[in-house]
């Protein structure tokens, strides 16, 4: 896809979100406003109608077959609107099944994910694997993003010494889903408790190279999360710049004060750089030797920058930015969750260092 095509795609994402999820609605949703909650259900339907969950799924399985660069544009838009659309784990589940699933699993799940009727949640890499050598599985898994809305769980699990994932449907007997609120009100998680849940053979994804598959997911997640965080930071910065052009104190527009200008200039510089980096890592070939290194390195960096920028935006807004009625906190919370998902800085940086030495 050319840059111009990607820009068109971005426009289409932004158009829908502007219409259905203006920032006031995000604020209302965060405060538990029932009207906003029901509008959010409408947003979920629109998103499915427009095929967003199908974006990166192969065409043969009912998807749109678009690139990771296109996916990055989607997450930029979602982050920019702090949209409560459970999307990341569904995207990752599709990536996992597409990459390592059996042909039967691909046939079964991918069209359902593409059509929006299956919403998935997948284990974070830091979570311990469940163990099950027989036909019934017990145990519990935590930190499952979008888990409250999911009807399919892909849990990290081990079977007879082999590492992989197991697909558990939320509706199966013995499955208890306990929703967990997150600090970020635009997303949620769940804990899943399994009590003697029947596990058929075809529920297992046991690739011969689970490390490579996990890295493939990590690379996908890193790009999506970097994009999401960057989108939030760009929105936060744009809104604080507007505010500083009108807010007056001491008889002056406060945006004329150099101490504030310089901070904005630094944030703007950091985000311009982050855009360049994101575009580059999102466009890298699957086969590229440095693909993983660059993706996780970019995630650690961009999420850090986004968390810093959104944090400082609250300070720049002052008292109004500290209130729940103002959107500034939504951007910060979004960025902080993006930073924490799929490993925080330290874990990623250790991996970056490993890859740098190996490369």
């Amino acid at each position: 896809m050319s840059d111009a095509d990607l820009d068109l795609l971005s426009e289409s994402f932004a158009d829908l979100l502007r219409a259905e999820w203006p920032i006031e609605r995000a604020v209302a949703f965060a405060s538990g406003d029932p009207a906003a909650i029901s509008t959010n259900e409408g947003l979920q339907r629109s998103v499915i109608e427009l095929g967003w969950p199908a974006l990166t799924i192969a065409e043969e399985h009912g998807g749109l077959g678009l690139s990771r660069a296109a996916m990055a544009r989607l997450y930029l838009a979602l982050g920019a609107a702090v949209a409560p659309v459970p999307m990341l784990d569904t995207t990752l589940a599709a990536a996992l099944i597409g990459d390592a699933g059996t042909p039967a699993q691909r046939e079964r799940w991918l069209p359902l994910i593409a059509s929006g009727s299956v919403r998935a949640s997948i284990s974070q890499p830091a979570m311990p694997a469940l163990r099950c050598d027989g036909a019934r599985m017990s145990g519990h898994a935590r930190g499952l993003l979008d888990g409250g809305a999911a009807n399919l769980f892909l849990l990290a699990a081990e079977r007879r010494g082999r590492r992989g994932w197991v697909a558990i449907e939320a509706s199966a007997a013995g499955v208890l889903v306990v929703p967990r609120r997150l600090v970020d009100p635009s997303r949620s998680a769940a804990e899943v408790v399994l009590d003697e849940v029947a596990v058929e053979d075809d529920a297992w994804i046991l690739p011969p190279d689970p490390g490579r598959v996990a890295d493939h997911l990590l690379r996908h997640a890193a790009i999506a999360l970097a994009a999401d965080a960057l989108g939030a930071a760009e929105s936060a910065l744009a809104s604080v710049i507007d505010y500083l052009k009108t807010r007056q104190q001491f008889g002056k527009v406060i945006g004329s004060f150099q101490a504030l200008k310089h901070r904005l200039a630094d944030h703007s510089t950091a985000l311009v750089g982050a855009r360049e980096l994101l575009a580059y890592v999102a466009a890298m070939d699957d086969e590229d030797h440095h693909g993983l290194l660059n993706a996780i390195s970019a995630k650690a960096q961009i999420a850090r920058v986004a968390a810093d920028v959104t944090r400082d935006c609250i300070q720049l807004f002052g008292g109004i930015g500290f209130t729940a009625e103002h959107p500034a906190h939504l951007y910060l919370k979004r960025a902080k969750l993006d930073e924490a998902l799929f490993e925080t800085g330290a874990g990623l940086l250790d991996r970056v260092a490993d890859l740098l030495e190996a490369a």
Partner: protein
Amino acid sequence: MANPGSRLLTGLTDDDAFRRGVQAWLANALPTDWRTRLQGATEEDVNRFQLWWLEERRKVGLATPHWPREWGGPGLPFSRQIIAYEEMARADAPELELMLISLFHLPATLFDAGTQEQRDLYLSGVRDGNDVWCQGFSEPGAGSDLASIRTTAARDADHYVVNGQKTWSSYAMYADYCLLLVRTDPHAARKHDGLSLFILDMRSPGVTVRPIRQITGEGEFAEIFLDDVIIPASNRIGAENRGWAIAQSTLSSERGLLLLSYAERVWQGYRKLSQVTRPSWLSDVGLRREFASFHAELLTVRLMIGRLLSMTEESEEGRLATLPVYIKLYWAPLLQRYTEFLVRAGGLVDQEWQPPVACTGHSSGVPALDFLKSFSWTISGGSNEIMRNIVAERFLGLPRA
């Protein structure tokens, strides 16, 4: 070689062949021990070495790789100019610091605003000779506020009489000529409107140069004292009192090629540390993570420079005005933090004084000196504080104070 023309790389008309040609030439022409020989060398030896390398480049047609034909250069397509600079940096070829103004700012200025006679006269001195040019812009009282220049040039018949003082002029003590920005109209309503740009012959009577030692111990800068110096009116570049605009375009003339070299060298150094040198501090978990965190930022700055170069190549107007400012604001503090990190990681060992290695950009391999030298990026060429004002006021639209 029987026919010196046969060694010209500039005749290669295909990017890949050109790259291979440049690589092969560098592998052959570049002494492997030049850094060792240059470490702690006298300034005269360093200069001699640079002129020798310029001559080597000239033999293969790469003395002025980025000069178009109308400047008397090889007229390479931009992609090959990039390749030439990229490969020279990757092979760790010496940076011709002494010739910076001669190679970049002078031709851009003369082609922007000079007369044909000035171009003919002065460009050949660089293209075919060893003319060193310096820049006389800053003054003790005119740094960030450059337009407040007080050195004056008073018109007298067919010449000007110049009085005043310039400072922070790199290599002025070795320079043959100076691009000199002075005030020709002390009464202009806007101070920017009273400035003119001149070519000053540094051998003119009344010119005194005093070198300034820098915090690195090197003596790159100098002050220039001008005492009733006569400059012929024919040495004025452009119209009288139009010097400010011309000087602005001079300052932005290097189009990323120079920065490409510097960033490429730092990147090479970074990769070498993790793969070849493997200093002992890399086994410290905290320092190793901090080191790893620079990967994304160093990659980013290379990507930003790459974007600028491709926009220049495609003549895209879009962000050509903003991107160079963002690049400087990204690169300069990054370079400073990264080199500071290397000093800190190295501990006491790197506090032991070592002589500088000239011509290495910001990758001399002496961490303390690379760190100290990084201030040349955060302060010169418009200090980062000025750059932040530009971003905030011109790009983000915040009101002036």
